[in-house]
């Protein structure tokens, strides 16, 4: 497997873990995401040994839930972020965090490869934009995601390219609902 560089490559790795329990693909995911997840956990307040333990649990979830990963809804980085965020909260609350109901389709549903690629490219662009934000705005976003400031204080006017991602995911949801004939409410 070639050296992964972007979201589209990581999708291949997660699929390999899901379909063939590929340990070398998992190791590549671990080497890249493990230290970043641990860094995120430490910066959001967990002490080092707890962050290490929590990170290992997050990576165990990546292995176990690989078949649930849906590239039409999230990039690999986003998916792993939500696992880490939920694991951290569960740990702090000692109870399971309420999560939205999964949409009623499995990984078998037909996905438009082109749309998946575009979503992944959008998130790559988002990451580039985040890195290029003026330090003050980037700090604000980071502090919000590290749980440092309350949701009331979060200014969303950072100019990050979220509009296209929103409409792309919206489109993917609509298409799948149409295919499955499932209503949004009830």
């Amino acid at each position, binding site marked *: 497997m070639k050296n992964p560089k972007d979201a589209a490559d990581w999708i291949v790795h997660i699929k390999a873990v899901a379909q063939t329990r590929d340990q070398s693909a998992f*190791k590549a995911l*671990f*080497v890249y*995401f*493990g*230290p*970043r997840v*641990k860094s*995120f956990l430490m*910066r959001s307040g967990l002490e080092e040994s707890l962050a*290490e333990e929590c990170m*290992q*649990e997050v990576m*165990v979830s990546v*292995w*176990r839930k690989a*078949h*649930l990963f849906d590239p039409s*809804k*999230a*990039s*690999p*980085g*986003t*998916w792993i*972020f939500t696992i880490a*965020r*939920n694991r951290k*909260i569960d740990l702090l*609350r000692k109870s399971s*965090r*309420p*999560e*939205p*109901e999964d949409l009623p389709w*499995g990984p078998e549903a037909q996905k438009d490869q082109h749309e998946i690629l575009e979503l992944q490219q959008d*998130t790559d662009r*988002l*990451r580039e934009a*985040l*890195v290029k934000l003026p330090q003050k705005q980037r700090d604000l*976003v980071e502090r*919000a*995601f590290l*749980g440092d*400031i309350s*949701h*009331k204080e*979060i200014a*969303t006017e950072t100019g990050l390219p*979220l509009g296209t*991602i*929103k*409409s792309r*995911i*919206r489109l993917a*949801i609509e298409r799948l609902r149409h295919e499955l004939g499932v209503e*949004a*409410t*009830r």
Partner: protein
Amino acid sequence: MITHHITDSLLMGYAAGALSEPLDLIVASHVSLCDDARARLSAYESVGGAMLEAETPVDIAHDSFDKTLQLIMGDAPTDTVHEAVKAPMPHAVFPKPLRDYVGGDLDSIRWRPLGFGVKQAVVTPRRETAVARLLSIPAGQAMPDHGHSGLEVTLVLEGAYIDANGRFARGDIEVATEEDEHTPVADIGGECICLVVTDAPLRFNGVIPKVAQKILRI
């Protein structure tokens, strides 16, 4: 058709994991009913993903990967493949996060009367200042006139109510702040069931509701 949408700050707070447990519950419940909110939430979560990837990697334990593999192999292989296709409950009144939280659907709730046919059930533990409660208001009945010292978020689960801001039906969400004094009245079509989260106690106007508030700890 959902016409009243959730605020960006609540969605971003949920994405960041910065909300209290009762707010997590109401946001997850609303997102389960509203595709628009789901797409907006995903966009905010992708900011979290971008941030995660931009993290400067820190040192991990030298045996970190082996330990993780041990954790994976140590457990009995769980058949998670069919997890995602668990039978949904298309006719449930409560969205899944709320069903999981209270351990059942509407029929599992033990209500406490608040007077005038209005009933409530507190669903979150009282250790937090924020509280999530279910309210049941009979058709055509008004909620006692109240203001609040903090945020009040209401999600309609069944029936509808009307207040100064419009008509709110299943899936609609209303976010009121302390400036708002509103008197929701249940639609005449049937009783109205709502999930309500307040991050500070409600303030009732009038003597009798104040007494009721003391006794019933609403």
